[in-house]
């Protein structure tokens, strides 16, 4: 099951040239850029690992692209996203976030129905990938 998170995720995967163009646009807006990765695809997982520090005051996408490529080389079978932060309001607000890498095989989610008091049902989503411990998913 193809994970759709962030911008452009219903489109075919962005090519490197397209990623570069998006970064170029973000930098032109004066946004800072961070690269993050994770192997937990749950939609409520906000805490992705940071790949290095967020990058401030860049002028050209070459610097971000080199980090994206380095992260992809280190974690070829994990989700990687690029986030752009806008500090205009005094704090860093995410303005754009899109995936630049995904594992080849995405097993999807298990829907758990948990019966609680009476006939009430609580639903839980659990990724099949996260059944394996961290670091050993998407082998």
């Amino acid at each position, binding site marked *: 099951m193809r994970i759709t998170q962030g911008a452009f995720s219903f489109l075919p995967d962005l090519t490197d040239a397209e990623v570069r163009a998006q970064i170029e646009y973000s930098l032109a807006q004066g946004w800072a850029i961070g690269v993050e990765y994770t192997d937990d695809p749950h939609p409520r997982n906000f805490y992705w690992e940071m790949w*290095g*520090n967020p990058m401030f005051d860049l*002028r*050209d996408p*070459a610097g*971000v692209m080199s980090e994206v490529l380095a992260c992809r080389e280190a974690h070829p079978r994990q989700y990687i996203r690029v986030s752009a932060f806008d500090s205009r309001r005094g704090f860093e607000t995410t303005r754009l976030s899109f995936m630049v890498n995904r594992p080849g095989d995405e097993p999807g989610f298990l829907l758990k129905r948990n019966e609680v008091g009476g006939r009430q049902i609580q639903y839980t989503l659990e990724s099949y990938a996260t059944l394996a411990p961290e670091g050993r998913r998407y082998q």
Partner: protein
Amino acid sequence: MSEAVASPPSPSPATPGVDLDALLAGSQVTQVLDQLDELIGLAPVKARIREIAALLLVERARKQLGLAGGSPSLHMSFTGNPGTGKTTVALRMAQILHRLGYVRKGHLVAVTRDDLVGQYIGHTAPKTKEVLKKAMGGVLFIDEAYYLYRPENERDYGQEAIEILLQVMENQREDLVVIFAGYSDRMATFYRSNPGMSSRIAHHLDFPDYAPEELEAIAERMLTSLDYRLSPSGSAALHDYIPLRMRQPHFANARSIRNALDRARLRQANRLFAARGRDISRDQLMTIEGEDIRASRVFA
């Protein structure tokens, strides 16, 4: 392999040429070169930059016609005494490279050892890489570059910064241009101890010291830009001041002149303030008199 492939493209009258004038006009590089000519002195530097600009323009023309040519190495070294205009010229150089399309953004990131070298193990590489990323698409200007290498301490982290720099200079030539700057003699030692560095720098520019009359012209220019001017006695005083200052220790060419003018402005303000009670004309506010300059300790 057939002969036709191996032989270089032959100049034939049928192939369309390339109009260097049009290319020059399109790049708007002449404006920057003209601005460069407005700088006083520095004749050998200007000549060299014109040569480089011509080379880059021709290289671009060749590319348009599909002639072979790898991206030229553009890393430079600016050597010269303090205050000879290295940073100013580096700024113009960034503009020239940008207009000729050799760097994408044309900004200048000026750094020194402190911005590149960390304070503990593992601190240097991220620091250097961060600076490099900021400079991508533009020019990285490393001032007093010889401080990067400290031979007396073999565990100095400067060596690590140098290695990262070299790697990026070699592999990402189209992404950024690095300019090393510093005093001539110490830079020579730096290159001797880092042969890999020296061989990757294509252009060595040496900035000569200014002659006294050039410094006078520079002073004149600085004052005009600040809406000041010298009275005849002020001119004479400056004329006497410059050779005296040049003999003093820590003489830093144009920078010393700027400092001297700043102090002269201070004295002028004091003089006007002391004479308050009378109306001060616009003319008086603009004029620096001989006494403002002659009060300098250089004359003592």
